[in-house]
């Protein structure tokens, strides 16, 4: 088929759609969630940067070798990123911005509870069976995605896990900051040394999440990314507005009575 004709056909179809359905921007992310989401970016960046400056001064994975030290994080990384020999600065930033992280985290939890947004994020037990199908769909091996609400079950698992990891990283942070006054907390994590290892492990956990998160956001396109900035996403308005006709979604908030009514 000649290219011109193809484009023409496509163009006509689009014109038709545009005539029949106007586009409307629908709120996807409330303002509070968006601000708290983006506040995390500078806060966590500073926490990881200053944390590595602290970590450099005692890298417990360091094994002296024939050609210099062998660390989990190579010395060249520390040197290139100006993370070496900056302990005092690292500590002062870490213990300042740590409060911002705590405040942002608490505000977020309070908002989730108040707005009931937590229902988007915490997976329902019944949905966990959709995990394999969701992964296959994400990998492009399965056409149909299991029915879901705002987030699919893998997103819910990821977002919930991140919250748990964030809670652990804050708790181990306090365990390391005040191992005498909060000795019970330090002991809960198996002592000072273990608390430090867990603190680092959670950092790598969060970094892995950010990696997957960014890849997935890039895969789902600019409109999706932009909705976390503006709060809104354009949708086509059809005369009979069923923007989400996923069958499973109907029962999410249903009371037992409503569920009976559905039957």
């Amino acid at each position, binding site marked *: 088929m000649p290219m011109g004709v193809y484009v023409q056909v496509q163009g006509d179809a689009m014109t038709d759609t545009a005539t029949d359905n106007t586009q409307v921007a629908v709120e996807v992310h409330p303002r509070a969630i968006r601000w708290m989401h983006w506040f995390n970016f500078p806060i966590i960046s*500073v926490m990881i940067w200053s944390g590595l400056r602290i970590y450099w001064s005692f890298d*417990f994975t360091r094994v002296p070798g024939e050609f210099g030290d062998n660390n989990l994080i190579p010395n060249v990384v520390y040197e290139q990123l100006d993370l070496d020999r900056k302990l005092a*600065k690292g500590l002062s930033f870490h213990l300042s911005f740590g409060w911002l992280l705590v405040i942002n985290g608490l505000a977020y939890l309070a908002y989730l509870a108040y707005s009931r947004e937590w229902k988007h994020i915490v997976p329902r037990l019944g949905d966990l069976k959709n995990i394999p199908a969701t992964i296959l769909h994400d990998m492009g091996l399965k056409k149909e995605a299991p029915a879901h609400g705002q987030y699919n079950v893998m997103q819910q698992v990821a977002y919930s896990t991140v919250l748990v990891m964030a809670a652990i990283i804050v708790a181990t942070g306090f365990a390391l900051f005040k191992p005498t006054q909060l000795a019970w907390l330090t002991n809960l994590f198996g002592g000072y040394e273990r608390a430090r290892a867990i603190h680092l492990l959670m950092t790598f956990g969060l970094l892995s999440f950010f990696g997957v998160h960014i890849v997935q956001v890039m895969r789902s396109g600019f409109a999706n990314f932009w909705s976390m900035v503006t709060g809104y996403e354009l949708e086509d308005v059809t005369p009979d507005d069923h*923007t989400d006709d996923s069958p499973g*979604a109907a029962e*999410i908030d249903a009371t037992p009575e409503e569920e009976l*009514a559905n039957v």
Partner: protein
Amino acid sequence: MSNDNDFYVSPRRTMTAEEFEGKGRRSFLIGLLALGLGGAGITELSRQQAPGDRIAAPLRSVHDFNSAIWQSFYSPDRLSPTFDPSEAGPIRINGRHGVRNEIDLDAWTLDAIGPDGSTLGQHVIDDFTSMPFEEMTVEHKCVEGWSQIVTWGGTAFANFAALYPDAAEAEFVNMETPDGVYQVSLDRDSMLHPQTLLAWELNGEPLTQLHGAPLRLAMPHKYGIKQIKRISRIEFSNVRGPDYWTERGYDWYAGL
């Protein structure tokens, strides 16, 4: 029951495509502004140094804010965890500031200074070793992040302070090494904590010079940077004295 369950929690607000475009522009500008201001702010915070300090004034304020919070929870009854002496091991020599040169231990003396600057007394090591002896096996923590279980032997600082009850009412205790290189100042509460020792033994052996012989401070509720070695001067004062590592950007309180 509605079919639109996607956003079942809050009602979905909408706006026209034109409004959305305007909102997008505003969001973009706000984002750009925030990125610029935030980036510049953090860079400046990292670059600045308060007078006589190696960190910016706001960061120092947060250190002091943190100290105030934790000091308000301070209790002399809350002790650092202790361990079985068999768990104690050798400890690395991390800092030589103030103990770089060998001294004649027999010639060593310690001056006690009062809040008015007057010398209250001069002490020799026997003055301390004749005080009640105690040992504690605790985790010695370095601000760098490493820790080591060690056994300190010595006498509670409170026993020494009892020699000068009036002077010991002062708010701070300022200490230094004989060469004046290393200085530490501490608040009275921290000094009178039952686990604050003037120590002359480490793991059952007399202190080596590099570990602070003949007399050093041992206090598991503070980082090692506060546990001054080879003390030659103890000043009870209402003025916070100089502090080696605080001047180099570390937290003065350094409490654990």
